[in-house]
Protein backbone atom coordinates (compact mmCIF):
# COMPACT_ATOMS: atom_id res chain seq x y z
CA UNK A 1 0.00 0.00 0.00
CA UNK A 2 1.64 3.24 -1.08
CA UNK A 3 1.26 6.63 0.52
CA UNK A 4 -0.67 7.86 -2.48
CA UNK A 5 -3.07 4.94 -2.35
CA UNK A 6 -6.52 6.50 -1.74
CA UNK A 7 -7.36 3.82 0.85
CA UNK A 8 -4.17 4.56 2.69
CA UNK A 9 -5.00 8.27 2.64
CA UNK A 10 -8.46 7.53 4.04
CA UNK A 11 -6.90 5.44 6.80
CA UNK A 12 -4.73 8.37 7.78
CA UNK A 13 -7.78 10.61 7.79
CA UNK A 14 -9.65 8.12 9.96
CA UNK A 15 -6.74 8.05 12.39
CA UNK A 16 -6.90 11.84 12.56
CA UNK A 17 -10.67 11.82 13.08
CA UNK A 18 -10.21 9.21 15.81
CA UNK A 19 -7.61 11.35 17.54
CA UNK A 20 -10.00 14.29 17.54
CA UNK A 21 -13.24 12.51 18.35
CA UNK A 22 -12.54 9.31 20.28
CA UNK A 23 -12.52 10.78 23.78
CA UNK A 24 -15.86 12.48 23.25
CA UNK A 25 -17.36 9.39 21.64
CA UNK A 26 -16.16 7.14 24.47
CA UNK A 27 -17.28 9.66 27.10
CA UNK A 28 -20.80 9.82 25.63
CA UNK A 29 -21.02 6.04 25.34
CA UNK A 30 -19.85 5.59 28.93
CA UNK A 31 -22.68 7.78 30.16
CA UNK A 32 -25.16 5.68 28.15
CA UNK A 33 -23.81 2.23 28.98
CA UNK A 34 -22.50 3.06 32.47
CA UNK A 35 -19.47 0.90 31.70
CA UNK A 36 -16.28 2.57 30.48
CA UNK A 37 -14.75 -0.73 29.33
CA UNK A 38 -17.76 -1.61 27.25
CA UNK A 39 -17.94 1.93 25.91
CA UNK A 40 -14.37 1.73 24.74
CA UNK A 41 -14.92 -1.66 23.10
CA UNK A 42 -17.98 -0.33 21.30
CA UNK A 43 -16.09 2.74 20.14
CA UNK A 44 -13.30 0.48 18.86
CA UNK A 45 -15.86 -1.56 16.93
CA UNK A 46 -17.19 1.64 15.41
CA UNK A 47 -13.63 2.53 14.43
CA UNK A 48 -13.20 -0.84 12.74
CA UNK A 49 -16.47 -0.26 10.88
CA UNK A 50 -15.21 3.15 9.77
CA UNK A 51 -11.98 1.61 8.52
CA UNK A 52 -14.02 -0.86 6.47
CA UNK A 53 -16.62 1.53 5.14
CA UNK A 54 -15.15 5.00 4.78
CA UNK A 55 -12.58 4.08 2.12
CA UNK A 56 -15.58 3.26 -0.12
CA UNK A 57 -18.29 5.59 1.14
CA UNK A 58 -16.05 8.56 1.92
CA UNK A 59 -15.64 10.26 5.29
CA UNK A 60 -19.06 11.37 6.56
CA UNK A 61 -19.73 15.07 7.19
CA UNK A 62 -20.08 14.51 10.89
CA UNK A 63 -17.68 11.67 11.70
CA UNK A 64 -18.21 11.87 15.48
CA UNK A 65 -21.97 11.42 15.12
CA UNK A 66 -21.37 8.51 12.72
CA UNK A 67 -19.02 6.78 15.15
CA UNK A 68 -21.39 7.32 18.07
CA UNK A 69 -24.44 6.12 16.16
CA UNK A 70 -22.57 3.03 14.95
CA UNK A 71 -21.35 2.25 18.46
CA UNK A 72 -24.85 2.74 19.87
CA UNK A 73 -26.33 0.33 17.34
CA UNK A 74 -23.70 -2.24 18.40
CA UNK A 75 -24.68 -1.65 22.02
CA UNK A 76 -28.35 -2.31 21.23
CA UNK A 77 -27.44 -5.50 19.31
CA UNK A 78 -25.20 -6.65 22.11
CA UNK A 79 -27.79 -6.13 24.81
CA UNK A 80 -30.48 -7.80 22.72
CA UNK A 81 -28.25 -10.74 21.80
CA UNK A 82 -27.26 -11.39 25.34
CA UNK A 83 -29.42 -14.38 26.34
CA UNK A 84 -29.11 -13.51 30.00
CA UNK A 85 -29.98 -9.92 29.38
CA UNK A 86 -31.20 -8.45 32.56
CA UNK A 87 -34.18 -6.16 32.50
CA UNK A 88 -31.82 -3.29 32.94
CA UNK A 89 -30.17 -4.08 29.65
CA UNK A 90 -33.50 -4.21 27.89
CA UNK A 91 -34.36 -0.80 29.32
CA UNK A 92 -31.00 0.47 28.27
CA UNK A 93 -31.53 -0.80 24.75
CA UNK A 94 -34.85 1.08 24.58
CA UNK A 95 -33.24 4.16 25.95
CA UNK A 96 -30.49 3.97 23.37
CA UNK A 97 -32.95 3.42 20.54
CA UNK A 98 -34.96 6.43 21.60
CA UNK A 99 -31.77 8.41 21.73
CA UNK A 100 -30.70 7.26 18.34
CA UNK A 101 -33.95 8.53 16.85
CA UNK A 102 -33.30 12.00 18.24
CA UNK A 103 -29.84 11.72 16.62
CA UNK A 104 -27.50 13.39 19.08
CA UNK A 105 -25.62 16.28 17.62
CA UNK A 106 -22.03 15.64 18.52
CA UNK A 107 -20.80 18.26 16.14
CA UNK A 108 -19.52 21.68 17.19
CA UNK A 109 -20.08 23.37 19.49
CA UNK A 110 -19.01 21.16 22.30
CA UNK A 111 -21.94 21.54 24.67
CA UNK A 112 -21.84 21.26 28.43
CA UNK A 113 -22.97 17.66 28.55
CA UNK A 114 -20.06 16.56 26.41
CA UNK A 115 -17.63 18.64 28.45
CA UNK A 116 -19.03 17.08 31.64
CA UNK A 117 -18.75 13.59 30.16
CA UNK A 118 -15.17 14.25 29.14
CA UNK A 119 -14.29 15.39 32.64
CA UNK A 120 -15.95 12.28 34.11
CA UNK A 121 -13.88 10.22 31.71
CA UNK A 122 -10.71 11.95 32.94
CA UNK A 123 -11.57 11.14 36.53
CA UNK A 124 -12.46 7.51 35.89
CA UNK A 125 -9.32 6.86 33.82
CA UNK A 126 -7.19 8.37 36.58
CA UNK A 127 -9.04 6.72 39.45
CA UNK A 128 -6.68 6.08 42.38
CA UNK A 129 -7.91 2.49 42.63
CA UNK A 130 -5.70 1.82 39.58
CA UNK A 131 -1.92 1.71 39.65
CA UNK A 132 -0.14 4.78 38.31
CA UNK A 133 1.03 2.94 35.19
CA UNK A 134 -2.47 1.61 34.50
CA UNK A 135 -3.88 5.11 34.90
CA UNK A 136 -1.31 6.46 32.45
CA UNK A 137 -2.02 3.76 29.86
CA UNK A 138 -5.78 4.10 30.22
CA UNK A 139 -5.64 7.89 30.03
CA UNK A 140 -3.58 7.83 26.85
CA UNK A 141 -5.92 5.26 25.39
CA UNK A 142 -9.27 6.80 26.39
CA UNK A 143 -8.43 10.49 26.31
CA UNK A 144 -5.39 10.74 24.08
CA UNK A 145 -6.78 8.47 21.38
CA UNK A 146 -3.52 6.47 21.26
CA UNK A 147 -3.48 2.88 20.12
CA UNK A 148 -2.15 0.15 22.41
CA UNK A 149 0.83 -0.15 20.11
CA UNK A 150 1.59 3.58 20.36
CA UNK A 151 1.37 3.44 24.16
CA UNK A 152 3.62 0.38 24.24
CA UNK A 153 6.24 2.11 22.10
CA UNK A 154 6.03 5.27 24.20
CA UNK A 155 6.69 3.36 27.42
CA UNK A 156 9.12 0.85 25.84
CA UNK A 157 6.86 -1.90 27.08
CA UNK A 158 5.75 -4.95 25.06
CA UNK A 159 2.35 -4.42 23.47
CA UNK A 160 0.69 -7.44 25.16
CA UNK A 161 1.71 -6.03 28.54
CA UNK A 162 0.03 -2.70 27.83
CA UNK A 163 -3.03 -4.44 26.36
CA UNK A 164 -3.32 -6.56 29.47
CA UNK A 165 -2.82 -3.55 31.71
CA UNK A 166 -5.70 -1.76 29.99
CA UNK A 167 -7.99 -4.81 30.11
CA UNK A 168 -7.28 -5.28 33.81
CA UNK A 169 -7.82 -1.61 34.54
CA UNK A 170 -11.18 -1.66 32.80
CA UNK A 171 -12.16 -4.82 34.67
CA UNK A 172 -11.16 -3.28 38.00
CA UNK A 173 -13.28 -0.21 37.29
CA UNK A 174 -16.25 -2.47 36.46
CA UNK A 175 -15.75 -4.86 39.40
CA UNK A 176 -15.44 -2.05 41.91
CA UNK A 177 -18.40 -0.28 40.33
CA UNK A 178 -16.53 2.97 40.06
CA UNK A 179 -19.19 5.57 39.20
CA UNK A 180 -18.88 7.72 36.10
CA UNK A 181 -18.93 11.06 37.87
CA UNK A 182 -16.99 14.16 38.78
CA UNK A 183 -16.07 13.91 42.47
CA UNK A 184 -17.47 16.63 44.70
CA UNK A 185 -16.55 18.26 47.97
CA UNK A 186 -13.48 17.19 49.89
CA UNK A 187 -12.90 14.21 47.59
CA UNK A 188 -12.31 16.48 44.61
CA UNK A 189 -8.88 17.73 45.70
CA UNK A 190 -7.48 14.22 46.13
CA UNK A 191 -8.96 12.92 42.91
CA UNK A 192 -7.73 15.94 40.99
CA UNK A 193 -4.21 15.45 42.27
CA UNK A 194 -4.40 11.85 41.05
CA UNK A 195 -5.28 13.18 37.59
CA UNK A 196 -2.45 15.72 37.63
CA UNK A 197 -0.02 13.05 38.78
CA UNK A 198 -0.92 10.86 35.79
CA UNK A 199 -0.54 13.69 33.28
CA UNK A 200 2.81 14.71 34.75
CA UNK A 201 3.97 11.10 34.79
CA UNK A 202 3.23 10.85 31.08
CA UNK A 203 5.03 14.14 30.47
CA UNK A 204 8.06 13.07 32.46
CA UNK A 205 8.27 9.74 30.73
CA UNK A 206 8.65 11.74 27.53
CA UNK A 207 10.83 14.47 29.00
CA UNK A 208 13.41 12.42 30.83
CA UNK A 209 12.95 8.87 29.81
CA UNK A 210 13.71 6.66 32.81
CA UNK A 211 15.12 3.93 30.62
CA UNK A 212 16.30 3.30 27.10
CA UNK A 213 18.62 4.93 24.63
CA UNK A 214 16.73 8.15 23.96
CA UNK A 215 16.84 10.88 26.53
CA UNK A 216 13.50 12.24 25.38
CA UNK A 217 10.43 11.07 23.58
CA UNK A 218 8.92 14.43 22.60
CA UNK A 219 5.64 13.05 21.26
CA UNK A 220 4.80 11.77 24.73
CA UNK A 221 5.42 15.29 26.06
CA UNK A 222 3.05 16.62 23.41
CA UNK A 223 0.40 14.07 24.40
CA UNK A 224 0.69 15.09 28.04
CA UNK A 225 0.58 18.78 27.21
CA UNK A 226 -2.50 18.27 25.09
CA UNK A 227 -4.21 16.40 27.93
CA UNK A 228 -3.20 19.15 30.35
CA UNK A 229 -4.50 21.90 28.10
CA UNK A 230 -7.79 20.05 27.64
CA UNK A 231 -8.10 19.62 31.41
CA UNK A 232 -7.36 23.31 32.00
CA UNK A 233 -10.34 24.22 29.82
CA UNK A 234 -12.56 21.63 31.54
CA UNK A 235 -11.61 22.85 35.03
CA UNK A 236 -10.69 26.51 34.48
CA UNK A 237 -11.04 27.44 38.15
CA UNK A 238 -8.48 24.94 39.48
CA UNK A 239 -5.17 26.79 40.01
CA UNK A 240 -3.09 23.62 40.23
CA UNK A 241 -4.25 22.50 36.79
CA UNK A 242 -2.93 25.76 35.36
CA UNK A 243 0.18 25.27 37.47
CA UNK A 244 0.82 21.87 35.92
CA UNK A 245 0.15 23.17 32.41
CA UNK A 246 2.56 26.06 33.05
CA UNK A 247 5.21 23.67 34.34
CA UNK A 248 4.91 21.43 31.28
CA UNK A 249 4.82 24.35 28.80
CA UNK A 250 7.98 25.87 30.26
CA UNK A 251 9.83 22.57 30.49
CA UNK A 252 8.78 21.70 26.94
CA UNK A 253 10.12 25.07 25.77
CA UNK A 254 13.62 23.65 26.29
CA UNK A 255 13.04 20.41 24.39
CA UNK A 256 15.04 21.40 21.34
CA UNK A 257 18.06 22.44 23.40
CA UNK A 258 18.31 19.51 25.78
CA UNK A 259 20.06 16.98 23.58
CA UNK A 260 23.03 17.08 21.23
CA UNK A 261 22.65 15.71 17.70
CA UNK A 262 24.42 12.60 18.99
CA UNK A 263 21.73 12.21 21.64
CA UNK A 264 23.76 13.36 24.64
CA UNK A 265 22.00 15.43 27.27
CA UNK A 266 22.75 19.15 27.49
CA UNK A 267 22.14 20.38 31.01
CA UNK A 268 20.11 23.47 31.79
CA UNK A 269 23.05 25.84 32.12
CA UNK A 270 24.73 24.61 28.94
CA UNK A 271 21.64 25.01 26.82
CA UNK A 272 21.40 27.60 24.09
CA UNK A 273 18.77 29.83 25.63
CA UNK A 274 18.24 31.69 22.36
CA UNK A 275 16.67 28.47 21.12
CA UNK A 276 14.23 28.07 23.97
CA UNK A 277 10.75 28.13 22.57
CA UNK A 278 9.43 31.59 23.44
CA UNK A 279 5.91 30.67 22.39
CA UNK A 280 5.73 27.88 24.95
CA UNK A 281 7.39 30.05 27.62
CA UNK A 282 4.79 32.74 27.02
CA UNK A 283 2.02 30.15 27.27
CA UNK A 284 3.54 28.91 30.52
CA UNK A 285 3.74 32.40 32.01
CA UNK A 286 0.13 33.05 30.98
CA UNK A 287 -0.94 29.83 32.70
CA UNK A 288 0.87 30.96 35.88
CA UNK A 289 -1.04 34.25 35.73
CA UNK A 290 -4.32 32.39 35.35
CA UNK A 291 -3.50 30.34 38.43
CA UNK A 292 -2.58 33.45 40.43
CA UNK A 293 -5.91 35.07 39.63
CA UNK A 294 -7.69 32.15 41.24
CA UNK A 295 -5.95 31.71 44.53
CA UNK A 296 -3.23 33.51 46.47
CA UNK A 297 -1.85 30.27 47.93
CA UNK A 298 0.48 28.25 45.74
CA UNK A 299 0.21 24.51 45.27
CA UNK A 300 3.13 22.23 44.42
CA UNK A 301 2.71 22.34 40.63
CA UNK A 302 2.41 26.10 40.59
CA UNK A 303 5.53 26.40 42.75
CA UNK A 304 7.46 24.15 40.40
CA UNK A 305 6.14 26.16 37.45
CA UNK A 306 7.40 29.34 39.08
CA UNK A 307 10.81 27.78 39.61
CA UNK A 308 10.85 26.82 35.93
CA UNK A 309 9.79 30.39 35.13
CA UNK A 310 12.81 31.74 37.07
CA UNK A 311 15.06 29.86 34.66
CA UNK A 312 12.95 30.91 31.67
CA UNK A 313 13.29 34.57 32.66
CA UNK A 314 17.09 34.44 32.91
CA UNK A 315 18.68 35.24 29.57
CA UNK A 316 21.97 33.80 30.79
CA UNK A 317 22.57 31.29 33.62
CA UNK A 318 24.32 33.94 35.71
CA UNK A 319 21.16 36.08 35.66
CA UNK A 320 19.19 33.33 37.42
CA UNK A 321 17.34 34.60 40.46
CA UNK A 322 18.73 31.99 42.88
CA UNK A 323 17.46 33.65 46.07
CA UNK A 324 13.93 33.42 44.68
CA UNK A 325 14.47 29.80 43.67
CA UNK A 326 15.59 28.97 47.22
CA UNK A 327 12.44 30.66 48.60
CA UNK A 328 10.23 28.69 46.19
CA UNK A 329 11.94 25.38 47.03
CA UNK A 330 11.61 26.12 50.74
CA UNK A 331 7.87 26.72 50.27
CA UNK A 332 7.62 23.57 48.17
CA UNK A 333 9.47 21.51 50.78
CA UNK A 334 7.06 22.70 53.47
CA UNK A 335 4.07 21.76 51.32
CA UNK A 336 5.32 18.40 50.06
CA UNK A 337 8.35 17.38 52.13
CA UNK A 338 10.66 15.28 50.00
CA UNK A 339 14.38 14.55 49.95
CA UNK A 340 14.41 15.25 46.19
CA UNK A 341 13.08 18.76 46.78
CA UNK A 342 15.65 19.22 49.55
CA UNK A 343 18.32 18.19 47.08
CA UNK A 344 17.16 20.81 44.60
CA UNK A 345 17.01 23.39 47.37
CA UNK A 346 20.61 22.49 48.23
CA UNK A 347 21.64 23.27 44.64
CA UNK A 348 19.95 26.67 44.97
CA UNK A 349 21.62 27.31 48.32
CA UNK A 350 25.01 26.45 46.82
CA UNK A 351 24.44 29.15 44.21
CA UNK A 352 23.48 31.75 46.81
CA UNK A 353 25.89 30.84 49.61
CA UNK A 354 28.60 28.83 47.84
CA UNK A 355 29.37 25.12 47.26
CA UNK A 356 30.34 24.45 50.88
CA UNK A 357 26.87 25.49 52.14
CA UNK A 358 25.26 23.34 49.45
CA UNK A 359 27.45 20.37 50.28
CA UNK A 360 26.49 20.54 53.95
CA UNK A 361 22.82 20.19 52.98
CA UNK A 362 23.56 17.41 50.49
CA UNK A 363 25.61 15.47 53.04
CA UNK A 364 22.72 15.75 55.48
CA UNK A 365 20.60 13.98 52.86
CA UNK A 366 23.13 11.20 52.29
CA UNK A 367 21.66 9.05 55.06
CA UNK A 368 18.18 9.36 53.54
CA UNK A 369 17.26 5.77 52.58
CA UNK A 370 15.02 6.83 49.67
CA UNK A 371 17.99 8.58 48.06
CA UNK A 372 20.44 5.73 48.60
CA UNK A 373 20.27 4.72 44.96
CA UNK A 374 19.31 8.10 43.52
CA UNK A 375 21.85 9.05 40.88
CA UNK A 376 21.12 12.77 41.10
CA UNK A 377 22.22 12.89 44.73
CA UNK A 378 25.62 11.54 43.73
CA UNK A 379 25.69 13.75 40.67
CA UNK A 380 24.97 16.94 42.66
CA UNK A 381 27.40 15.95 45.40
CA UNK A 382 30.08 15.20 42.81
CA UNK A 383 29.59 18.59 41.22
CA UNK A 384 29.92 20.43 44.55
CA UNK A 385 33.06 18.45 45.42
CA UNK A 386 34.44 19.31 41.99
CA UNK A 387 33.87 23.01 42.62
CA UNK A 388 35.54 22.75 46.00
CA UNK A 389 38.59 21.26 44.25
CA UNK A 390 38.15 17.88 45.95
CA UNK A 391 38.70 16.08 42.64
CA UNK A 392 39.34 12.46 43.70
CA UNK A 393 36.16 12.46 45.79
CA UNK A 394 34.30 14.15 42.94
CA UNK A 395 35.48 11.47 40.58
CA UNK A 396 34.22 8.66 42.83
CA UNK A 397 30.84 10.35 43.15
CA UNK A 398 30.48 10.91 39.39
CA UNK A 399 31.28 7.24 38.83
CA UNK A 400 28.77 6.27 41.45
CA UNK A 401 26.11 8.44 39.78
CA UNK A 402 26.96 6.85 36.42
CA UNK A 403 26.51 3.39 37.87
CA UNK A 404 23.13 4.34 39.29
CA UNK A 405 21.44 5.97 36.30
CA UNK A 406 19.38 3.79 33.99
CA UNK A 407 19.66 6.16 31.06
CA UNK A 408 22.62 5.31 28.85
CA UNK A 409 23.08 8.87 27.54
CA UNK A 410 23.16 10.29 31.01
CA UNK A 411 25.63 7.60 32.07
CA UNK A 412 28.00 8.64 29.27
CA UNK A 413 27.85 12.24 30.38
CA UNK A 414 28.54 11.36 34.02
CA UNK A 415 31.48 9.15 33.04
CA UNK A 416 32.86 11.99 30.93
CA UNK A 417 32.67 14.29 33.94
CA UNK A 418 34.35 11.64 36.10
CA UNK A 419 37.18 11.48 33.58
CA UNK A 420 37.46 15.28 33.56
CA UNK A 421 38.31 15.20 37.29
CA UNK A 422 41.73 13.89 36.31
CA UNK A 423 42.67 16.81 34.11
CA UNK A 424 44.09 20.07 35.36
CA UNK A 425 43.30 19.73 39.05
CA UNK A 426 44.83 23.13 39.84
CA UNK A 427 42.34 25.07 37.73
CA UNK A 428 38.76 24.18 38.62
Amino acid at each position, binding site marked *: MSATDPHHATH*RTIEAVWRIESARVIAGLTRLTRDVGLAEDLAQEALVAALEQWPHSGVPDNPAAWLTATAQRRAIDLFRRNANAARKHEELAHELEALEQTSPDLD*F*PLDNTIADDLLRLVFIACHPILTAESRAALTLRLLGGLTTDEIARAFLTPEPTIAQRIVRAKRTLADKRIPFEVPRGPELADRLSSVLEVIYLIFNEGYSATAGDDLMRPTLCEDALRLGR*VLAELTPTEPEVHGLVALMEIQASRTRTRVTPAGEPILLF*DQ*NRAQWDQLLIR*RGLTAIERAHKMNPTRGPYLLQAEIAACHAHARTPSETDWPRIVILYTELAQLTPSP*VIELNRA*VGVSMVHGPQAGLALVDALASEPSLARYHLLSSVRADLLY*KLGRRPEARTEFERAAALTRNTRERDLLLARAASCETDPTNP
Partner: protein
Amino acid sequence: MRFMVIVKATPESEKGGALPDPELLLEMGKYNEELSKAGVLLALDGLHPSSKGARVKFSGKSHTVIDGPFTEAKELIAGFSILQVKSLEEAIEWVKRAPNCNPGGDSEVEIRQIFEMEDFAPVLTEEQIQHKAEKRAKLPNQTAHA
Protein backbone atom coordinates in the same frame (compact mmCIF):
# COMPACT_ATOMS: atom_id res chain seq x y z
CA MET B 1 4.22 18.36 15.29
CA ARG B 2 3.19 21.90 14.57
CA PHE B 3 1.49 23.47 11.62
CA MET B 4 0.96 27.04 10.62
CA VAL B 5 -2.53 27.51 9.30
CA ILE B 6 -2.43 30.47 6.96
CA VAL B 7 -5.70 32.19 6.15
CA LYS B 8 -5.48 33.83 2.74
CA ALA B 9 -6.81 37.33 2.24
CA THR B 10 -10.12 38.03 0.54
CA PRO B 11 -11.36 41.26 -1.06
CA GLU B 12 -13.34 41.76 2.16
CA SER B 13 -10.34 41.29 4.48
CA GLU B 14 -8.31 43.69 2.33
CA LYS B 15 -10.85 46.51 2.73
CA GLY B 16 -9.30 49.15 4.93
CA GLY B 17 -11.13 49.99 8.14
CA ALA B 18 -13.99 47.56 7.59
CA LEU B 19 -14.28 45.06 10.44
CA PRO B 20 -15.34 41.55 9.48
CA ASP B 21 -18.98 40.56 9.54
CA PRO B 22 -20.01 40.22 13.24
CA GLU B 23 -21.61 36.86 12.58
CA LEU B 24 -18.40 35.54 11.04
CA LEU B 25 -16.42 36.92 13.99
CA LEU B 26 -18.70 35.05 16.36
CA GLU B 27 -18.35 31.83 14.34
CA MET B 28 -14.59 32.23 14.26
CA GLY B 29 -14.50 32.88 18.00
CA LYS B 30 -16.45 29.69 18.66
CA TYR B 31 -14.23 27.71 16.35
CA ASN B 32 -11.05 28.95 17.98
CA GLU B 33 -12.49 28.15 21.39
CA GLU B 34 -13.04 24.57 20.26
CA LEU B 35 -9.42 24.37 19.13
CA SER B 36 -8.33 25.66 22.54
CA LYS B 37 -10.55 23.19 24.38
CA ALA B 38 -9.03 20.38 22.35
CA GLY B 39 -5.57 21.53 23.43
CA VAL B 40 -4.31 21.99 19.86
CA LEU B 41 -4.26 25.77 19.44
CA LEU B 42 -0.89 27.29 20.40
CA ALA B 43 -1.28 30.77 18.98
CA LEU B 44 -3.28 32.83 16.53
CA ASP B 45 -3.33 36.31 15.13
CA GLY B 46 -5.20 38.30 12.53
CA LEU B 47 -3.54 40.78 10.21
CA HIS B 48 -4.49 44.29 9.14
CA PRO B 49 -5.12 44.80 5.41
CA SER B 50 -1.98 45.04 3.28
CA SER B 51 -2.62 48.81 2.93
CA LYS B 52 -1.12 49.11 6.41
CA GLY B 53 1.92 47.02 5.52
CA ALA B 54 4.99 47.20 3.34
CA ARG B 55 7.35 44.98 1.41
CA VAL B 56 11.09 45.09 1.41
CA LYS B 57 12.58 43.72 -1.81
CA PHE B 58 16.15 42.56 -1.77
CA SER B 59 18.26 42.63 -4.89
CA GLY B 60 21.87 41.66 -4.35
CA LYS B 61 23.03 43.98 -1.60
CA SER B 62 20.45 46.68 -2.13
CA HIS B 63 16.84 46.80 -1.11
CA THR B 64 13.69 48.69 -2.06
CA VAL B 65 10.71 49.39 0.18
CA ILE B 66 7.27 49.14 -1.39
CA ASP B 67 4.30 50.38 0.59
CA GLY B 68 1.00 48.51 0.59
CA PRO B 69 -1.68 47.90 -0.45
CA PHE B 70 -0.86 44.99 -2.70
CA THR B 71 -3.30 43.83 -5.29
CA GLU B 72 -2.98 40.09 -5.68
CA ALA B 73 -5.38 39.17 -2.79
CA LYS B 74 -4.92 35.43 -3.28
CA GLU B 75 -1.24 35.67 -2.42
CA LEU B 76 -1.78 37.85 0.63
CA ILE B 77 -2.50 36.53 4.05
CA ALA B 78 -5.11 37.77 6.49
CA GLY B 79 -4.23 35.76 9.56
CA PHE B 80 -2.60 32.66 10.90
CA SER B 81 -2.79 30.16 13.71
CA ILE B 82 -0.36 27.59 15.03
CA LEU B 83 -1.69 24.12 15.77
CA GLN B 84 0.07 21.29 17.57
CA VAL B 85 -1.34 18.03 16.28
CA LYS B 86 -0.35 14.45 15.46
CA SER B 87 -0.32 14.60 11.69
CA LEU B 88 -1.01 16.70 8.62
CA GLU B 89 -4.29 14.80 8.33
CA GLU B 90 -5.31 15.94 11.78
CA ALA B 91 -4.51 19.55 10.89
CA ILE B 92 -6.64 19.14 7.75
CA GLU B 93 -9.51 17.71 9.79
CA TRP B 94 -9.43 20.70 12.12
CA VAL B 95 -9.24 23.21 9.28
CA LYS B 96 -12.20 21.55 7.54
CA ARG B 97 -14.29 22.44 10.59
CA ALA B 98 -13.49 26.15 10.36
CA PRO B 99 -16.10 28.58 9.04
CA ASN B 100 -15.57 29.94 5.54
CA CYS B 101 -13.84 33.32 5.96
CA ASN B 102 -15.67 34.62 2.94
CA PRO B 103 -19.25 33.51 3.65
CA GLY B 104 -21.02 32.49 0.49
CA GLY B 105 -17.89 33.06 -1.58
CA ASP B 106 -14.45 31.54 -2.02
CA SER B 107 -11.62 31.55 0.47
CA GLU B 108 -8.48 29.55 0.96
CA VAL B 109 -6.49 28.29 3.93
CA GLU B 110 -3.00 26.89 3.58
CA ILE B 111 -1.49 24.40 6.02
CA ARG B 112 2.28 24.27 6.39
CA GLN B 113 4.42 22.21 8.72
CA ILE B 114 6.75 24.09 11.07
CA PHE B 115 10.35 22.91 11.41
CA GLU B 116 11.03 21.02 14.63
CA MET B 117 14.19 20.12 16.51
CA GLU B 118 14.63 16.85 14.68
CA ASP B 119 14.56 18.66 11.34
CA PHE B 120 17.83 20.36 12.20
CA ALA B 121 20.67 17.94 12.66
CA PRO B 122 23.59 19.95 14.05
CA VAL B 123 22.61 22.05 17.03
CA LEU B 124 26.08 22.55 18.44
CA THR B 125 29.49 22.14 16.90
CA GLU B 126 32.21 20.23 18.72
CA GLU B 127 33.88 23.54 19.44
CA GLN B 128 30.73 25.00 20.99
CA ILE B 129 30.33 21.92 23.15
CA GLN B 130 33.95 22.22 24.30
CA HIS B 131 33.45 25.90 25.09
CA LYS B 132 30.38 25.07 27.14
CA ALA B 133 32.17 22.31 28.98
CA GLU B 134 34.81 24.83 30.03
CA LYS B 135 32.20 27.23 31.32
CA ARG B 136 30.55 24.41 33.23
CA ALA B 137 32.80 24.57 36.27
CA LYS B 138 31.41 28.00 37.14
CA LEU B 139 27.85 26.75 37.14
CA PRO B 140 25.85 24.53 39.44
CA ASN B 141 25.06 20.97 38.72
CA GLN B 142 21.46 21.09 37.67
CA THR B 143 20.65 17.66 36.36
CA ALA B 144 17.88 17.91 38.88
CA HIS B 145 16.74 21.19 37.34
CA ALA B 146 17.09 20.43 33.67
